[in-house]
């Protein structure tokens, strides 16, 4: 257990404060490299144990956040290892960036339940808790793997698989030639490998970018816009997407009848899903869309429910309210510039007390600011939350891609140095193994299988 691990130890949704926890022999050294005190000095390693300090986290010269950092030296810590906790208040994105920075600086992302595991193995946790610790480890890692598999799009999964296959082929070629030099020759191999590596590295780098910007993975608050047809759902989506303070990126919709947009309001990231209008219909095709909309609404973290102020509440509206009433809902009475048929007190009665009802006009922009504030407030108070595990999964995947890129870069270096094949094939193997962790495949007999199936060996 000589690796130093890091993770965000607070739920990401719980308002402004987040804690990044680092544990292991290099914990202090790692944070020392990114923390500066108020005078701008790298002073962390000089602090006494069990003290807390005000200062800043810098990524190079870029200020990330104003923080309080506590230093705790072994053995009187939770894990009985050196530990540093960075308390930041910049919200989810900042937390994530600081964690990323720790990883870049030498920490590894903690495995599910790893802090607890270390605490236990180092004798810190009561023996009676052993069962609980084991359950935690196994359930968390199962969940983590499930998350990973469930939320990798098919395309992404295939992409990683195909990169892995290319790497394995190259290793098998090298290894079969090493094992059977009289049948298989490596003449001219290094040049062709060099070219392939360039391609693989650029593919991985693209993947890495998409992981770190979160384009490909649904991360953030899944926010579903529902309502009967022509109530202004698409307009709301477009309006929020085009909102001047929002950063917008496109995500290809997974189904033809829903549209997704990534919208970041302040530091809160929303995945806006516009669904087909829900109403009672005899049209089969439309019904499929309606079923989908219901399904999305069910899985959403937050629902924006739109009504039309120019009409009385209809049966369709009531039917929708019926199946979303257990969710976090912000009810929006739209088109108030054109009518007043529905009043907010009337709608309030239909929902639980905490539910928010706002009157807006997407057309004129009235009430949109309030909407933003309400979402922010709900988020800060922890009323709505992102899926933490999913977020961590994403980070883990990005981290693994980065590691596999490092391994392949090592190969390139070795090729440039003219080192022999048996050396860099080890790095190829670790790139292969690392990528396997993303898609939940281990390496057991892959290589031997590949060698025998692709190359004709001797005797």
């Amino acid at each position, binding site marked *: 257990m*000589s690796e130093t691990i890091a993770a965000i130890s607070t739920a990401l949704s719980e308002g402004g404060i987040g804690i990044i926890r680092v544990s292991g022999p290099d914990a202090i050294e790692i944070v020392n490299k990114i923390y500066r005190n108020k005078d701008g000095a790298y002073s962390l390693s000089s602090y006494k144990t069990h003290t807390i300090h005000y200062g800043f986290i810098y990524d190079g010269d870029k200020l990330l956040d104003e923080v309080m950092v506590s230093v705790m030296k072994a053995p009187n810590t939770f894990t009985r290892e050196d530990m540093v906790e960075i308390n930041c208040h910049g919200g989810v994105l900042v937390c994530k960036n600081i964690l990323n920075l720790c990883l870049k600086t030498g920490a590894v992302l903690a*495995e*599910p*339940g*790893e802090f607890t*595991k270390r605490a*236990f*193995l180092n004798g810190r946790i009561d*023996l009676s808790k*052993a*069962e609980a*610790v*084991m*359950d935690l*480890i*196994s*359930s968390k*890692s*199962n969940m983590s793997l499930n998350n990973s598999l469930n939320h990798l799009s098919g395309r992404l999964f295939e992409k990683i698989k195909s990169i892995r296959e290319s790497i394995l082929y190259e*290793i098998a070629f090298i*290894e079969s030639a*090493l*094992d*059977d*030099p*009289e*049948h298989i020759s*490596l003449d001219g191999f290094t040049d062709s490998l060099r070219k392939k590596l360039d391609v693989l590295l650029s593919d991985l780098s693209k993947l890495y970018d998409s992981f770190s910007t979160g384009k490909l993975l649904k991360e953030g608050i899944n926010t579903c816009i529902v309502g009967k047809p022509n109530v202004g759902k698409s307009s709301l989506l477009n309006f929020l997407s085009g909102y001047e303070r929002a950063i917008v990126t496109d995500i290809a919709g997974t189904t033809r009848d829903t549209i997704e947009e990534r919208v970041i309001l302040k530091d809160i990231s929303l995945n806006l899903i516009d669904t087909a209008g829900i109403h009672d219909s005899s049209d089969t095709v439309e019904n499929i869309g309606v079923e989908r909309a219901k399904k999305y609404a069910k899985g959403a973290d937050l629902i924006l429910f739109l009504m039309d102020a120019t009409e009385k509440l209809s049966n369709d509206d009531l039917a929708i309210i019926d199946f979303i009433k257990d969710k976090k809902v912000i009810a929006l009475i739209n088109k108030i510039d054109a009518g007043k048929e529905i009043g907010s007190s009337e709608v309030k009665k239909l929902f639980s007390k905490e539910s928010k009802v706002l009157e807006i006009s997407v057309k004129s922009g009235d009430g949109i600011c309030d909407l933003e504030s309400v979402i922010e407030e709900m988020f800060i108070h922890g009323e709505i939350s992102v899926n933490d595990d999913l977020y961590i999964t994403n980070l883990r995947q990005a981290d693994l891609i980065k590691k596999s890129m490092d391994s392949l870069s090592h190969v390139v270096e070795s090729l440039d*140095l*003219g*080192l*022999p*094949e*048996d*050396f860099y*094939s*080890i790095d190829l193997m670790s790139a292969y193994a690392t990528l396997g962790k993303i898609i939940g495949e*281990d390496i*057991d*007999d892959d*290589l*031997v299988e590949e*060698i*025998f*199936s692709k190359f*004709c*060996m*001797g*005797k």
Partner: protein
Amino acid sequence: MLENPNLCKEYVDVCVIGAGHAGCEAALASARLGLQTVIFTVSIDSIALMPCNPNIGGSSKGHLVREIDALGGEMGKNIDKTFIQSKMLNVSKGPAVHSLRAQADKSEYSRSMRRVLENQDHLTIKQAEIIELLIENGEIKGVVTYTGTTYYCKACVIATGTYLKARCLCGETITYTGPSGLQAANSLSKSLIDNGVKLRRFKTGTPARMDRRSIDFSKMEEQFGDERIEPFSFSTDPDSIQKEQISCYLTYTNEETHKIIRENLSRSPIYAGIIEGVGPRYCPSIEDKVVKFADKERHQVFIEPEGLYTNEMYVGGMSSSLPEDVQLKMYRTVPGLENCKIVRNAYAIEYDCLEPNQLLPSLELKELSGVFCAGQFNGSSGYEEAAAQGLIAGINAARKVLNKEPLVLDRSEAYIGVLIDDLVTKDNREPYRMMTSRAEYRLLLRQDNADLRLRKFGYEVGLVSKEEYDKVLLKEKLIDEEVKRLKEVIVGASKNIQDFLTRHESSLLRTGTSLADLLCRPELDYEKLAEIDVNRPSLSSDIINQVSIQVKYEGYIERQKIQVEQFKKMERKLIPADIDYDDVKSLRLEARQKLKAFKPLSIGQASRISGVTPADVSVLLVYIEQLHHRN
């Protein structure tokens, strides 16, 4: 039951069943450690027989031979005495995969090993088939021969190779014999099964042997040995083995060959479904090559002499179980073999062997105390793999009798460790062959440093003399001193240094640089540096070689050492023998079943079982910690 007074009884310490490459090493190790040992063989003339290819060593197998030698085994010494050609393979590649291979004079190899056995103190050779193990309360008591004699013993080593219920197939013709027509051993399997041992069936094959006089070598490429011959054994003086070598020859199959094979596939017992045993993919029959690699226009064929005093030539690359008439037709399509005469037909052989997950890493059966197993019986293939296991089984049988802890080498210490760990931990579904890709720490496990790695084990066990061990200690010291010196000697950017670098197309110095840093440059080597390193000590070539490797590849070597540290930590975490996996609630079902089946000794071993995830390993760690505290 009354005992039959006419039957003989003998009392010994260790019985070794089988006198192939595993049996010989096992018997020698046991006898050399002072135990009364008897070795049984169905035929004295088949001691250390090489029934297949006429060579020892080769990629990764050469590593095994060097390791056997470093530990005090016999194979390396014996091939040094009886080789007729020698070659270091992979010299254009990295030092970790350089591999020595020698062509043996087969009958000389066998004769020479027999002499060593015959003259070994405490060792008796006995021609007899063993038909039964005497087991009482899960413990070995003795073995019984076909003629009824009981040898009472404290440990035994089963090294029956391919002889158990062997049958040979050549097309439609099936004979119930061991290799080369030798008598099979048909009774021991039953005794093993009766004692709860699980067996399975593997197969392998060998190509035809041809009359040298019927081959036209002018149509083939001649393959020579190395100019300077390196011995296998660290005890052999290289100067003493330089000699004239015999050539091998290279030719190729062609479309015509492949056509004949394809047309007659239905007559191959494998393709006709007659063979039940599982064969190795790494030495496929020519039928397999033609079927599986249909787009390959030709396959290499190596014609290798079987010895100095025979005209038999081995046809490497064309093992087969096709019928005799097809064999003749197919071989005769190969350039140079148009008029060939076959002395022995190619054949496939099927045999009973062990499911090796029943073994401890000491090679003792988990459920039968004192019964050790080695070689092809354990599901491996190859002379070297067999000898390596034989040596370990022999050492551990002896240590069992002497009440000592077994010798277990781990994956970071030796190819032998990888070999045995793979056998006892992984789910092998075909005869296992050593490959360098199986050794994850291979940069450290080189054939050139087997003595540095393993002599100390051989010495501690008692198979390596103090004198031999001291030689290694001195070598180690000289290497360390020279590496240190190269790191400490700094050369400046003086004119003669820059001239030297210019001449070798190496970039010029800006500041002082150590000789070690210069040695790391791909375009420079130790020899070239002599010019600017005037005060260097005079060192032997093997020491210079070690120094160069250590300095040139330091980055990689250090990284592997860190990995090894991690690995060792997990190996040292032992799992209590009486662990009840059903009590570990959070384990996934698959992991629980696998752990129950394999009964790993350490967390490290558990982590290598397929189907056991890192999370399962974490759960296990926590559980074991809890057990420790409870007790």
